[in-house]
């Protein structure tokens, strides 16, 4: 197995593209880690579906207030400038295009920007939450994901096989191996791990990557 970035490192890389003052929604689970890695001097404002803008980090254990939680039902904290609102206003922010960035996990991303991240098929209990709203709302929809599945199959694919979350919505993928944009219905390689050749990366990717310029080295600190 090739060396690859840890989830924490992928989150770090995604955080570097978030501008100061950006309004950002982080999907529940793994994407929540992005908040920890804001570059010095920048401060994003985080939105959560359940009606908070501008919340702070998790409180110390034992100091949770269960009326102050994020969409993942984890406790958060107040900061100066936090605002509360109801769910319809919250999704007006999402659907109305007021968020600058949404960062979500993925089961599959297709070269045309289709995303599948809510259902692994007819078995089990389906659950969608706010993902389908987020992918059509934020100005920029990015995905953070392992480049391949646990079985080694590409997660960046020609066509999604799993139920779609949204059509043509993803514009950038931060994977464990590369940073890939989606432009004009194609994967465009921007950065890759220096230890990996473009051919090796292509072999782990389910659709052809365009490489219009030599990809930059994807360099991430030990975390």
């Amino acid at each position, binding site marked *: 197995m090739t060396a690859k970035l840890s989830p924490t490192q992928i989150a770090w890389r995604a955080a570097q593209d978030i501008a100061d003052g950006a309004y950002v929604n982080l999907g529940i689970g793994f994407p929540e880690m992005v908040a920890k890695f804001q570059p010095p001097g920048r401060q994003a404002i985080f939105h*959560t*579906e*359940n*009606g*908070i803008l501008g919340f702070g980090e998790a409180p110390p254990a034992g100091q*949770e*207030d*269960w*009326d*102050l*939680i994020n969409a993942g*039902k984890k406790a958060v904290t107040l900061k100066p400038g936090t605002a*509360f*609102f*109801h*769910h*319809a206003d*919250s*999704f007006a922010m*999402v*659907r109305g295009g007021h968020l600058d960035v949404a960062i979500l996990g993925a089961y599959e991303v297709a070269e045309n920007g*289709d995303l599948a991240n809510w*259902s692994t098929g007819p078995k*089990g*209990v*389906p*659950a*969608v*939450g*706010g*993902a*389908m*709203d987020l992918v*059509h*709302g934020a100005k920029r929809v990015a995905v953070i994901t392992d480049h391949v599945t646990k079985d080694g199959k590409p997660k960046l694919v020609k066509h999604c096989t799993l*139920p*779609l*979350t*949204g*059509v043509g919505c993803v514009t950038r993928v931060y994977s464990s191996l590369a940073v890939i944009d989606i432009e004009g219905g194609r994967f465009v390689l921007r950065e890759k791990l220096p230890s990996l050749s473009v051919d090796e990366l292509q072999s782990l990717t389910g659709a052809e990557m365009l490489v219009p310029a030599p990809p930059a080295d994807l360099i991430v600190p030990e975390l």
Partner: protein
Amino acid sequence: MDKTLPDLATAVAGIEDGVTVMIGGFGGSGAPIELIHALIDRFLATGHPRDLTVVNNNAGNGHVGLAALIETGMVRKLICSFPRSADPVVFTERYLAGQIELELVPQGTLAERIRAGGAGIPAFYTPTSYGTDLARGKPVEVFEGRPYVQERWLKADYALVKAHLGDRLGNLTYRMAARNFNPLMCTAAATTIVQVSRIVDAGAIGPEAVITPGIFVQGVIEVPNPAQEEDLNRAQARYPEVAQ
């Protein structure tokens, strides 16, 4: 006019078999646990109400509140966006056994459908779910070159809501992110019953601080120190206390 109710039993006494009940909250925050438990009490005593359609963002957690309501078998159908939780065993078992119907709705669409129900808007268009399984069978229309899915309003016979302060006219405030779906559900039900931590005099809530104006509220019941679902679940509580 005084919308205060004498006790929890009275608050839930009018809910009949087969009706649609919106239940506020997002996970445990803003969940009207005491109203739900009062409804369970009534069912255990009388066998009613049953065959309920419940609207909530989630499907309950552990064995209290909404999960307990499902566990008693009172719920025929659940309309929600995210039937997962730290401990979703009650819903999961019922659902996989085919004992409860699920209508899965994207969270923002769920919120907007409830708002539409309260605002007299029978249908609206949203980009959400276009091209996915959840848009199946729904009309699609193109506006300014982009496809949108037509969604319908959602209304209820009853809403069970948790607020923070309430006055005798039904004006309400909420505590932090416990607001979530509660103000929307107040507007979308024919009868909205609200549990508040404290009933205050009219005027005690400033006119700019009112989040839900009283016009959307039919009954208010004071429940001081309401239980929080997360605390109950950490204590492995079950409702009713003796397992069935």
